[in-house]
């Protein structure tokens, strides 16, 4: 297990360097590294299921003095999620552009691999300072991905993203410094001690505020819809599906470590999450452009996950947090599929106005189908993983008689059905509006990637036993 853990961190960075050094071989190298990373993620999960979790101390120095890597079920699930979504996005990047469209700019592979390495390192980190460092690497490489096409809109999006990322990092760093001053250590096991003092609580609040900015959690989400809607589709997919998850992941870790003492923070998360769910849905209902709708839906879905994190309660006496982890996974697959599909639709039609989706003789059927399946997962209808996650969440909330939260989750579901059906219903055009010989564009790698991810989100619902078994090996 030590081997897989170290390789998951080092291999992507080494491959990123190699891809930057040899631009001609970058695609081959990058794809190979992405697939190898997926293989190691699978091996790590297998090892965990067989032997349970453990912590590795780098260089033999134990915490709080040294750096420890924590490879447990939750980390492995997130690493697996990154590997799956990353493989699909890499597949999309391997494809040729549609005729008449510009070739993708170079630089995708080094940036993507650095993003991957940063995320893996982040998921394995066990202390706040390490987390801060990996957030910084992640933030910079993700900004690079956003700016990649070099168009005015993409640069604007990259700038927005950079500013928000820096603001979040600043808050995070302040919190980490204050925590160190208070407790003399920054590993996550120090959290329960921090809750005891006022300064410690302020430190945690700063860390959480920084995470909220990075996760685009309402009301700190303002930067996100524009940034995600204006970036190129693969970048949007990675940002929306994976990068925002990293902050939620850390929030989940804090909640797991904090136990009963951190209850007020959980309550704040739940309230902010509810607000996000309603506000994101309201804006998605009014969005006129497809990618903007998808981006606002991310705001709403982040809200749902935050709500689930918040209401999960003390992990010592409830496993409800596992529902939040499953929702993170299913949202990652479905949202990446949706951004890739939306990108393909916009690429073929030459625009992404929702009202114009059904007024054309061109029918990108595969991408539309992928969008529809992803929508089913995001709404949380069976048999998708989104449904299983929501079911477990609702069943747990009912058992606790938390009816207000049940009602909020239900409301969020209704709203997501409402805004996503705006798009899907337009994909179901037919009859007299469409010429009998409506043209279907040729298949593109992007269609394959989107469809694969969407079907993955669907199939994951039937295979949910696996993530739940993996989560059982989480160290708390």
């Amino acid at each position, binding site marked *: 297990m030590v081997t897989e853990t170290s390789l998951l961190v080092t291999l992507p960075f080494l491959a990123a360097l190699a891809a930057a050094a040899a631009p001609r071989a970058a695609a081959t190298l990058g794809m190979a590294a992405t697939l190898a990373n997926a293989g190691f993620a699978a091996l790590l999960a297998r090892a965990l299921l067989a032997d349970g979790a453990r912590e590795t101390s780098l260089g033999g120095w134990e915490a709080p003095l040294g750096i420890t890597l924590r490879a447990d079920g939750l980390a492995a699930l997130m690493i697996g999620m990154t590997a799956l979504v990353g493989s699909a996005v890499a597949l999309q990047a391997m494809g040729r552009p549609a005729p008449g469209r510009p070739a993708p700019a170079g630089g995708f592979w080094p940036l993507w691999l650095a993003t991957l390495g940063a995320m893996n390192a982040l998921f394995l980190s066990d202390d706040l300072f390490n987390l801060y460092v990996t957030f910084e690497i992640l933030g910079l490489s993700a900004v690079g991905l956003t700016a990649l096409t070099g168009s005015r809109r993409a640069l604007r999006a990259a700038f927005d993203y950079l500013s928000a990322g820096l603001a979040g990092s600043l808050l995070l760093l302040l919190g980490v410094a204050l925590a160190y001053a208070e407790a003399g250590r920054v590993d996550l096991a120090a959290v329960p001690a921090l809750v005891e003092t006022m300064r410690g609580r302020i430190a945690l609040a700063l860390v959480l505020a920084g995470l909220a900015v990075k996760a685009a959690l309402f009301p700190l989400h303002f930067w996100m819809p524009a940034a995600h809607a204006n970036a190129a589709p693969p970048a949007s997919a990675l940002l929306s599906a994976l990068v925002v998850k990293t902050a939620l992941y850390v929030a989940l870790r804090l909640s797991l470590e904090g136990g009963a003492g951190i209850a007020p923070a959980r309550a704040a998360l739940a309230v902010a999450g509810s607000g996000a769910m309603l506000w994101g849905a309201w804006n998605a209902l009014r969005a006129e452009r497809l990618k903007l709708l998808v981006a606002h839906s991310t705001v709403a879905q982040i809200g749902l996950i935050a709500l689930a994190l918040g209401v999960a309660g003390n992990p010592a006496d409830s*496993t409800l947090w596992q529902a939040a982890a499953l929702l993170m996974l299913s949202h990652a697959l479905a949202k990446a599929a949706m951004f890739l599909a939306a990108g393909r639709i916009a690429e073929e039609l030459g625009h992404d106005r929702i009202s114009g989706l059904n007024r054309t003789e061109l029918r990108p059927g595969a991408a539309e*189908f992928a969008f529809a399946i992803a929508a*089913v997962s995001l709404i949380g*209808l*069976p*048999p998708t993983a989104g*449904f*299983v996650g929501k*079911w*477990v969440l*609702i*069943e*747990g909330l*009912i*058992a606790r008689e938390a009816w207000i939260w*049940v009602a909020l989750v*239900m409301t969020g*579901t*209704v709203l997501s*059905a409402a805004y996503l*059906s705006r798009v899907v*219903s337009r994909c*179901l*055009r*037919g*009859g*007299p*509006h*469409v010429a*009998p010989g409506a043209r279907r564009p040729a298949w593109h790698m992007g269609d394959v990637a989107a469809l694969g991810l969407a079907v993955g989100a669907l199939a994951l*619902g*039937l*295979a*949910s*036993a696996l993530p*739940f078994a993996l989560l059982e090996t989480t160290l708390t």
Partner: protein
Amino acid sequence: MTELLPLAILMTSLGVAPAILAMPDDWSRLRTAVNLAAAALKLGLVAWLSLSVAQGAEFGLGLEIAPGLALELKADALSVLFLALSSVLWLLTTLYAVGYLEGGTDRSRFFGFFSLCVAATVGIAMAGNLFTFVVFFELLTLATWPLVVHRGSAEAHRAGRIYLVYTLGGGLALTLGAAWLYALAGAVPFAPRGVLGDLPQTHPVAVTAIFVLLIAGVGVKAALVPLHGWLPVSMVAPAPVSALLHAVAVVKSGAYGIMRIVYDVYGVETMQGLGLAAPLAALAGATILWGSFRALRQDDLKKRLAYSTVSQVSYITLGVALISPLAAVGGLAHLIHQGIMKITLFLAAGNFAEGRGVKTVSGMDGMGRLMPGATLAFTVGALGMIGVPPLAGFISKWYLGAGGLDAGQPAVIALLAGSGLMNAAYFLPILYRAWFRDPPADAVPKRRIGWMLAVPPAVTAGFVLAAGLLANAPFSPLGWTRFIVSLEYL
């Protein structure tokens, strides 16, 4: 090997759906071949399963997908009742749809979702626990939507929107009720005479609230008043889809859900103990009268048939809710009887529209001379609905009436008589126009009705006759429902 039979039956439709969806539209021969082969294979497998179940074999398959949450397929006598209905009618409807949509657009999409609908129906029929039922029930909603909006017109999209609002809303209530019941009971398998144990005594309010949620959830698809609004609107869909909605899959799944919830989750004793049966019976009675009443005034033929469905499907609910073995036999048998009668009516109505462009009751003048075969089938279906002996509908009503007396509810007789009168009042004028009036002088055929369109309604009309005449044969719908009822009540 045989224990995989339920999975094989599910896969005959679920497996072909993606293949058909992926086919280019103009591969019509291959698509038709795959479709019909799958339908025939499924019919054979269902026949095999039915024989095994009749001999006392039990089937069960499970897949755990979260701690304490499993997908489970099983086949019991009640499953077989619904499976037989949906697989026989699927074959006929597919044949009809191939003929109906010949040369149309988006056929791969249509037949792909058509298969998915039947897969969901089969899953509902074989669901072994409440969670599995919810999964397939929601899948049915999703798979039907593209069929309702198939024509792509603004009207079709409006109907689709209304359909989604009703059915997703119902699905939400169902999911909430089911999750609540899981939170209380831990697991909710389907088993004769109920599975709630002492929950009705310890949590009477919660168990009652859950019942309301579950019935509201399945009641949308069963078109219980006031949740029936989507059904008349959806008649804008092509005729094979109407057949699917009204006879093969959708409303039947709702009625079947009511049976499962009443018999295999709550059980007859709990239903009576908590006083849930009487309100459900009253709701069913109100729906029967209201549906018939609204049908009287529709000139649009399909709309009249749709309101007639609202009324007729509630006979099933009534039979279940009266808590009398005799009424249960009538209600369960009506699941099949209503299916074969209503599909006959819709397929014949589709032929009137395709062959002569006639879509209204007032346009039916002289249809008996213009299209004698379809009109004859329509007549058999209509007379069956009214309850004329010896047709299928008579058998259902006879047992329902006897059950009403048995349950000490003579009002049921009045209800049946009142509804029967209204049935006659909205069907007989159609038959009178078709057989005794002259066709309009300017009548011209719109399109030739090929064998694919002509045969299915003739066959189902034959079923209507046979189900009534041979009601006492061991494998008739009536014979099978007696077998089921003996399991639930004895």
